[in-house]
């Protein structure tokens, strides 16, 4: 009996010992696998090929856009427009679509290439001019009532009117109110599409003026271009390019504009100054 008890006790002791060792094992300093060297990643330069954009879309009526290449001459200006197949093992990534003509070289492209708005403008599906029998009294009543309620800041039209007046030919009569109200209408339609890059260190001093040409149906003709930009410096060229592109994207996203067709001559070309001052 005692022998059996002793056996049991011994067995139990062994189990406890084993368990204790197991737990101890868990906490024992595990020999850690020697930390590996970092896996190398090599950069493959694929910037020696022209950067080509999509063929112009009929709707966009864009002049063929070549973004500039950082490197000189394209490697092989072969005129095969076929997309070459997958890269198999090549180090330089395959050139998918070669541009037949050599691309002008420039340093890093800070600005979009000014588009050449093609004369072949889409005859906009413009509806016959509404507003022939314009009851101005009704309208002006409407506006007079509406204006004070809308807590829209009164527009300072003086500058605008002045600049238009200066620029316009003598015989042109521009109603400053028309221009200002038109500007407000464009602002109201484009601003919701602008996602400025707010976090950048230099955003506070950065503004960009984008020029866009519009067709009669309110769609953008070609690519909007950068007219001028402030706040740029040698250190922030990447950021200023990205900033300008957010403005261009806003213009391209928020189209067609809905503006009165009878004032088309006033808004067929628009310069929009993007300034995130009230967001920073």
């Amino acid at each position, binding site marked *: 009996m005692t022998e059996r008890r002793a056996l049991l006790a011994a067995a139990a002791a062994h189990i406890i010992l084993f368990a204790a060792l197991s737990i101890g094992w868990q906490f024992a300093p595990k020999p850690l696998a020697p930390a590996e060297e*970092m896996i190398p*990643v090599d950069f493959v330069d694929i910037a020696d090929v022209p950067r080509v954009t999509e063929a112009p879309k009929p709707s966009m009526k864009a002049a063929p856009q070549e973004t500039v290449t950082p490197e000189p001459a394209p490697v092989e200006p072969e005129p095969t427009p076929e997309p070459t197949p997958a890269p198999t093992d090549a180090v330089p990534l395959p050139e998918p679509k070669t541009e037949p003509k050599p691309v002008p070289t420039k340093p890093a492209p800070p600005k979009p290439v000014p588009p050449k708005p093609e004369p072949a403008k889409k005859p906009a599906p413009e509806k016959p001019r509404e507003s022939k029998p314009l009851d101005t009294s009704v309208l002006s009543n409407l506006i007079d009532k509406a204006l004070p309620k809308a807590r829209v800041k009164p527009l300072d039209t003086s500058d605008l009117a002045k600049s238009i007046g200066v620029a316009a030919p003598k015989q042109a009569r521009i109603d400053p109110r028309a221009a200002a109200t038109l500007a407000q209408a464009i602002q109201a339609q484009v601003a919701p599409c602008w996602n400025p890059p707010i976090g950048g260190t230099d955003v506070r001093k950065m503004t960009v003026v984008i020029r866009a040409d519009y067709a009669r149906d309110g769609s953008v003709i070609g690519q909007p271009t950068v007219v001028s930009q402030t706040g740029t410096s040698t250190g922030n060229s990447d*950021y200023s390019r990205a900033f300008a592109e957010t403005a261009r994207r806003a213009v391209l996203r928020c189209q067609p504009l809905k503006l009165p067709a009878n004032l088309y001559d006033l808004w067929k070309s628009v310069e929009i100054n993007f300034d995130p001052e009230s967001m920073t």
Partner: protein
Amino acid sequence: MGPGLRRGDESSSEIHTPHKHPLPTLLSRCYTPAMRMIIASLALLTAFPAVAAPIRVDINSGIAQPLPIAVPGFATAAAQPTEAGTTAELGQRVAKVISDDLRSSGLFRPIDPAAFTTSVSVPDVTRPQFANWRTVAAQALVTGTVTANPDGGITVGCYAYDVFSSEELARQGFVTTAAGWRRAAHKCADLVYSRLTGETGYFDSRIVYVSETGRKTKRIKRLAVMDQDGAGHRFLTSGQNLVLTPRFAPNQQTITYMSFEGNRPRVWLYTLGSGRQQAIGDFPNMSFAPRFSPDGSNLIFSMSTGGNTDVYRLDISSRQLTRLTTQTGIDTAPSYSPDGRRIVFESDRGGSQQLYVMNADGSGQQRISFGDGRAATPVWSPRGDLIAFTRIGGGRFSIGVMKPDGSGERLLTNAYQDEGPTWSPNGRVILFFRSARGGPVDLYSVDLSGQNERKVPTPLDGSDPAWSPLLP
């Protein structure tokens, strides 16, 4: 001109335009009463002669929201086997990692691939059908290829496009081992991020931190390292000795930290490649809170001698030690400015923990933190424009930032106990650790605006994180 109008702005929603208006068709196409009003007023002024000068419009506000971006699975000409799966499988996984990276920044909103109208074949990679991506409201597109190389490695081609201008923005190829596919994906995400934001990326980077487990009284703390997104996690030390405050060297291959090895709290170096650990010197007294200089040639840390704790600089190659502060009190947590010219540190010399800035040689010490409570653990931003720190007050610990002159203080977090900030390589994101009351300790990230707070996954509890520079 005033702030930009927004569609559906409440301020203008009270305006009602009668529908018996003479311009019903035009007006019905317009979005809001405000715009109807504007157009109605335009209609008053009919038929002006042509003008040469373009009309000028000012837009002073937009909407800050993440950019919708499409990242379809990367294409492969034919699924080839690699050590890490077929190139077709890798193509899907690479796109997922890129998508997750971009989303985590808070600046991008990757579109659910279920919404895509097409998959992307190899020819599509370089000639995308932009119309398809416009229909899913993508503003940017990332495509790419995964190809197996004869040597067993892979090439990941990465392309970024602006969907609305139909323009290629960037392209880059990355050659790596099959196992290195994640790094190639992070590199691609960094390319996209930097091209679209104009700032450098931070996705191909790592985090070292202290992994914690066990009861409060018998806490086991081990050094651990992982990719910025939590992948590739690995422990560096066994847990036999308590370790604290690991920090990367600029070359990312060495980590300095404090260990209680042999019951002598000292500053140590850990070499990632070899796993070698060594104490930096046989100083008689406790040394702690180490950090590298931006050029990697020096360490700065605190050492206690004769009841006083001061900041010292050690030249790593010559082992020459220089004392930088001498004031009575505890001077600790030193951190260099990115140009290496100045050092921010914390000191209780004025009665409570506050932040001080001095020149790198110890001259020109001046206090920069004021206001209520205490300020601790300062870290200079890699951009140089801000200092992140732990604000202690009102029974809470919060992460704050201030300019190097002490102005412009902002708190980024608001929880029970957030401390120990570290900067992402581009200075846009701050990682820190959060202790719940009597609960777990976890790593979190928050961006500089205080938005986009996220928990960083770790297998166990985590504290004392440090972000590496961008990997080469």
